[in-house]
């Protein structure tokens, strides 16, 4: 009897394992191909040089040494203004988007008047595609604005206001999700800590800086690390706003990389970098961002405010 039960148990255990294997096989395969494979290929390509084979079919592939890295670095130096734009986007996120979101999250967390309504209103745009959102925005600052005011150009068309409008859109479109993240973090603050502080006579500003911010600090740190890691890949919604033929004069590095990668070929042309050069550029960014992100995380965790 015990042996039969054992066998049954064993069979069930095996079935569970098979079920588990089937369930994880596809995601694992996808991870292996789409992440490991793609990144490994990108790493290899960064050291390869492609030339059209004289036979007319295929390529002659040779070891490129650090040539692609040198060309990638030259490309980056030539596009230093794009780096400035990416960094401006980063600074705006850090010093305008996040502080604004923190203050508003605090308002919602404290359940001040209409906080529930604001929470819903702010979250709603997050379930709408950013492309739809950007289309609406474009009409508001373009056609609607010019029709209402009789202005010659909309904010996105006027060269003096284009970049400012893009930055505003970035702040606006990410505001809701930031508020949601921070208000959720604040929602986990122990009520007894707040009550105790209030008994000690802290006012609302002191509560914000000495209890709320330190309690939500791990979320702030995570958001900061994600933002830093995305400096070179953030398109700043330029594709959504301007499409393929977008404005290169206000291109971020992320937008530039997307544009170039979408038209790049294995063989370099006089005006377009090859896949190998773009792969090398990606690796350069990795070399810069990995230690920066790790160091920043350490510093923010160590030097950041503590609820104690």
């Amino acid at each position, binding site marked *: 009897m015990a042996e039969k039960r054992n066998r049954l148990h064993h069979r069930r255990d095996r079935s569970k394992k098979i079920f588990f294997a089937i369930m994880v096989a596809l995601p694992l395969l996808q991870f292996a191909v789409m992440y490991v494979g793609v990144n490994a290929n990108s790493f290899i390509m960064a050291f390869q040089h492609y030339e*059209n084979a004289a036979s007319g079919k295929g390529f002659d592939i040779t070891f490129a040494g650090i040539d692609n890295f040198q060309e990638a670095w030259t490309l980056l130096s030539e596009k*230093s203004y794009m780096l400035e734009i990416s960094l401006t986007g980063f600074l705006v996120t850090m010093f305008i988007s996040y502080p604004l979101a923190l203050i508003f999250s605090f308002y919602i967390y404290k359940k001040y008047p209409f906080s529930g309504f604001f929470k819903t209103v702010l979250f709603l745009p997050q379930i709408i595609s950013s492309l739809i959102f950007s289309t609406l925005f474009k009409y508001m600052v373009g056609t609607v604005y010019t029709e209402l005011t009789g202005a010659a150009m909309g904010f996105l068309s006027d060269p003096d206001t284009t970049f400012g409008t893009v930055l505003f859109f970035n702040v606006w479109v990410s505001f809701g999700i930031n508020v949601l993240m921070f208000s959720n973090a604040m929602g986990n603050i122990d009520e007894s800590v707040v009550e105790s502080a209030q008994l000690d006579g802290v006012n609302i500003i002191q509560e914000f800086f000495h209890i709320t911010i330190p309690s939500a600090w791990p979320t702030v740190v995570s958001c900061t690390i994600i933002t830093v890691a995305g400096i070179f890949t953030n398109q700043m919604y330029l594709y959504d706003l301007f499409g393929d*033929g977008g404005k290169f*004069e206000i291109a971020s590095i992320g937008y530039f990389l997307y544009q170039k990668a979408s038209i790049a070929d294995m063989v370099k042309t006089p005006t377009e970098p090859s896949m190998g050069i773009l792969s090398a550029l990606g690796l350069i960014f990795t070399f810069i961002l990995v230690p920066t992100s790790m160091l920043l995380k350490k510093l923010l965790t160590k030097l950041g405010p503590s609820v104690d």
Partner: protein
Amino acid sequence: MKKTNKILAALLSLTMGLGFVGCGSGNDASGKTTIKVVAYEGGYGYNWVKESAKRFEALNATTSFEKGKTGVYVDIKITKDTDVETMSSSAEDIYFTNGNATPRDYSQKGWLVDINDIVTEKIDTRDGVEYSIADKIDEDYRVILQNRGDGHYYGLPYADYYSGLTYDEEAFTAKKLYFAAPDATSKAAYNSPYGTADFLTAENETSRKSCGIDGKYGTADDGLPTSLQELMILCAKIKQSGYVPFAFPGGHANYTSLFFEGLWASLAGYEKIRSGYDFTGTVDVVEGYEDEPLFSGINYIRKPKIKTETVSEAEGYYSTQTVERYYALSFIQICQKEGWFAQLTNDTNVSHTATMGRFLTNGLTSQEKVAMLIEGSYWYNEASDYGEVKKYQVLKEKQTGEKKAERKVAWMPLPVSVNETVEERTDGGRNRYTFTQSGSSFAFINARTKNKGGVLDACKAFLQFTYTDEELSKRVGMHGVYCTALSHSVAEEDSNKLNYFQRSVFEAAENADLVLPSASNETFLTARTTLSIGGKRYLQPIDTDGREYTTIISAIRSGGLTAEEIMNVTMVKAADWGAYYQG
């Protein structure tokens, strides 16, 4: 609980089943060889594929391409994204694409089937002479359809267009915007800041329009500007008449390049544009600037110092420094500075079809009226597909009672000189225009089809069928768009289907020398998308701070760059030619 599970399971099974039903053929493909075709959904038109497929299916109803199967079914996907880059993992067989990458490039990657047999086979007879598809292809163009190794054909030219201007003939007549012939009696002098010209006030026996660029009276270009100076005077008169001279879609600022390319080609002429592709002959290059203006009334465009240079493959950079390119750039700068671009060109929300609609409905709405539209020569077909022509007809009928009105807009050959008016030719002949092909696209078969046995034969047969004279003619009749790299006749029944605008394009093209972006030298072929006059080299200027602009107009508007600056940063200097030269 068990009952709920059963219901859930039944529902899931039903959903799966419905999915499979969706996969099943809702067509008459059963028992037939199926070929999968992807065609680009764009302004060139795409319905011809469906019609052509029906004829091909009927023709091959009893043909067996695969064992056990009789007849063919052409499964067509019309799409904005033909997604050629995924071809090597796709199940699609034939592509009618939209894109600049050539069969020469794709065959290098091993993505295409060798179609040399069907391209070189004689399939048509004209006046007793047999023709193959290859015979119809422009000689200069063949090389980009062939593999660089075996020299076989791997693709065919599909669709393309001319770049330039369309003018509103109705507005030109109503507002008396045609230049008068020197001997015309009914004319009025118009003084503009850029000069004076006589415009025709009435057309009668003693008064006729000027002879136009072709130098012959009684042709479609009569009364149109022949020099940049005349075009400037015309623009001033257009503004005075309550119209704005030019429109391009604000959402597609890159369309200004269509004007730039057309103007450059027209000013330079066939030989000089070709010298930039073949690297032969002489060109006039800019070697500096005088301290005097190029045009009267314009003090911000300097006259260039010109030097004649001989172009060779080793010194091909001269062809990027030509004075005609400077003139074309200068004119774009003037248009911007003098306010000749419509308000809608500033609105990034305005699409190309909306711009076509605005142009077609000139005077029927309260919106600004546009005298000339910057577009490719295919645009009327696209305007019809997107309902803009219908909108015009509805508005016209409401306001005038005229049913199904045909809009009189026509293709405009562009000026050929800076300030010399073309005079009548005394030999009775016509000066030829120079047109340039833009937007080359191609048709080819996916290399993966080789693994499908008889399907490949069916694909080859269908592709060849669509390039017979009869089918090409039907394609033209249906969409009014001609593949410029192919020579073929158009049957009367098909040409009768063309509308007023499309006929104007064909009439102009008959008197034009066409520059196709192809050459047999490796330097040009390697950098074709950069060095052709619609190439990146000329359309994406970079300013001195390294800032890159996507279009000429954005460089002028956003960067405040001048024609001189754009010219300087987009020309290839002798020291940089090494990146291009393949000698």
